[in-house]
């Protein structure tokens, strides 16, 4: 093989190896060890100087009890399921909110599109954490939303939205909306408008034309957008901990508790490994979908 090609191919693999594989193996190793009152708070550690005996001892010390522990307490699978439900519902809501925006952008005059695109990307220029915090001011019982609704006479008593599941959905939809809009917009923009004219010439109403022509053609964008929203929201920690209430059960929070409250790095690592395995399935599906469309 030509050395330049080799370098080109090696670069992404080196990236994956250094920034994905190695950290993953470290986490996997911790998940197989035991907790201890020490720095760092787990044992055994790998001691190269002990030679072969050390390596054997190292493998002897590893065991799967932390993974077995995860199956014994219903907290863990309930959190995984609850996270998946929240991520799925939030993804669907993001799609509902994002599609019309992407559609409108793709139908806007070409000279307007860069500006609209800019407006979608603009919020990224400020920290996501600050933007999520800002929602506290909007959603709290004396917040702007309640003031507006009370003032307009829609409600008599303030709605309690903050610290509920609804606030978590609002937070996720708001944060990840651009990830939905951009791929859908990309696929809609490519669409040839003469197809719609042809559909209308052949007797389709505008609505039927949308469902039979536009929507199927935007499917790759929808799928890409859904994955881009679903995958990060599954492990989301910041949004549920800032906007959610105590009843919001998400695996990100369970992970935090194992790590910080129990100081049980091995079990925390086991939770993370299982989360990754759960995520691998949608990631592989996403990859396949991308390849098919390539």
């Amino acid at each position: 093989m030509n050395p330049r090609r080799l370098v080109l191919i090696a670069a992404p693999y080196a990236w994956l190896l250094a920034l994905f594989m190695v950290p993953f193996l470290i986490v996997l190793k911790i998940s197989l060890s035991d907790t201890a009152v020490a720095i760092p708070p787990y044992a055994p550690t790998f001691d190269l100087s002990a030679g072969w005996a050390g390596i054997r001892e190292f493998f002897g010390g590893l065991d799967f009890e932390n993974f077995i522990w995860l199956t014994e307490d219903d907290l863990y699978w309930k959190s995984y399921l609850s996270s998946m439900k929240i991520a799925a519902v939030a993804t669907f809501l993001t799609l509902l909110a994002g599609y019309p925006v992407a559609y409108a952008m793709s139908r806007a005059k070409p000279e307007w599109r860069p500006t609209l695109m800019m407006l979608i990307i603009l919020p990224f220029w400020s920290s996501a954490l600050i933007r999520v915090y800002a929602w506290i001011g909007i959603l709290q019982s004396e917040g702007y939303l309640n003031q507006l609704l009370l003032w307009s006479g829609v409600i008599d008593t303030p709605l309690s939205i903050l610290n509920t599941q609804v606030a978590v959905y609002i937070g996720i939809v708001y944060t990840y909306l651009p990830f939905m809009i951009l791929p859908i917009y990309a696929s809609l923009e490519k669409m040839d408008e003469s197809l719609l004219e042809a559909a209308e010439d052949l007797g389709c109403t505008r609505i039927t034309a949308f469902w039979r022509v536009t929507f199927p053609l935007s499917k790759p964008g929808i799928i890409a957008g859904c994955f881009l929203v679903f995958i990060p929201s599954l492990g989301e920690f910041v949004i549920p901990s800032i906007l959610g209430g105590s009843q919001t059960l998400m695996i990100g929070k369970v992970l935090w508790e194992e790590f910080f409250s129990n100081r049980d790095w091995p079990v925390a690592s086991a939770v993370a490994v299982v989360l990754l395995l759960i995520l691998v399935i949608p990631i592989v599906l996403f990859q396949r979908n991308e390849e098919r469309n390539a």
Partner: protein
Amino acid sequence: MKKAMLPLAAVLLGGTAAMATEGTVHVYNWSDYIDESLLAKFEEETGLELVYDVFDSNELLETKLLAGGSGYDVVVPTGTFLERQIQAGVFRELDFGQLPNSENLWDVVKERTEKYDPGNAYSVNYMWGTTGLGVNMAKVQEVLGEDAPIDSLDLVFKPEKMEKLASCGVHFLDAPTEIIPAALRYLGEDPDSHDPDVIGKTEDLLMSVRPYVTKFHSSEYINALANGEICVAFGWSGDILQARDRAAEADNGVEITYNAPKEGALMWFDQMAIPADAPNPEGALAFLNFIMDPQNMAAASNYVYYANGNKASQEFLNEDVIGDPAIYPSEETLENLYTVTAYEPKVQRVVTRLWTKVKSGT
């Protein structure tokens, strides 16, 4: 011209970088826990640069310490956590030869902190306080009537009271090591019990009131109480007194009172210690000595409404601090206060699991 300036810039940059590593002290303390003018005063007096970061949970601090290389020179864990961290070898022993102000420390507090730090070898007390009930009087009396039990755990552990209070908002500390001992005390058990079966007895009690808790959080309640968003907080004494002050400053008609529950209250101690891998242990000692200066310590207490472990500082305390029994309890109240010790890892797991169940219902 440009070329000539480059080496100069390099010298300047290199110079400041070297100074920064030598002369910087990194302090990691609780949020809302110091008079910030003291920070500038420290820099002025010692010529050291001070980086002051804050946290609101012992768990967060502990994880950073156990991971190692936190980069902090002074940290302020609570006694129970400190006890376990000493066992893990997190701290370096204090060189009292460099802490002349340590003679100002108060025996009454030193005797009690010995439980966590035998011989007081690794830490000095910063402040201490109790865990109790912060109440917005007007709102609580509105929903519970004139005879609302504002000085009793009945207020937060009786479901029928909590059900009514839910309408005006209740915050609990998100700290199982504070709430579970209180629940044990309320049930007539030893608050410092490490027996999983005894700890398990609090489950029914806590589950019966959890639906009415607006939020479990360890720092938001200061503002929430002060602006009238909630009417009861089960929190730390000084934080609630700070809420009282913020409300008074805002002049928003909110009146807050703090009571240590008459059933007995948890007494805790926040201890200043130096991590074994502190980048600047000399600077850390300078900071500790600075804080133990009677006037500085008094300024901090006057500002945050927590009692401190510094006997000599007492003459500089404001009357509304030293004279307030909610801050400096009388002899007989002192007898009604209890302390707790660190849980072993296995018991800790039971406690965390119970707490997760209480918070999430699962």
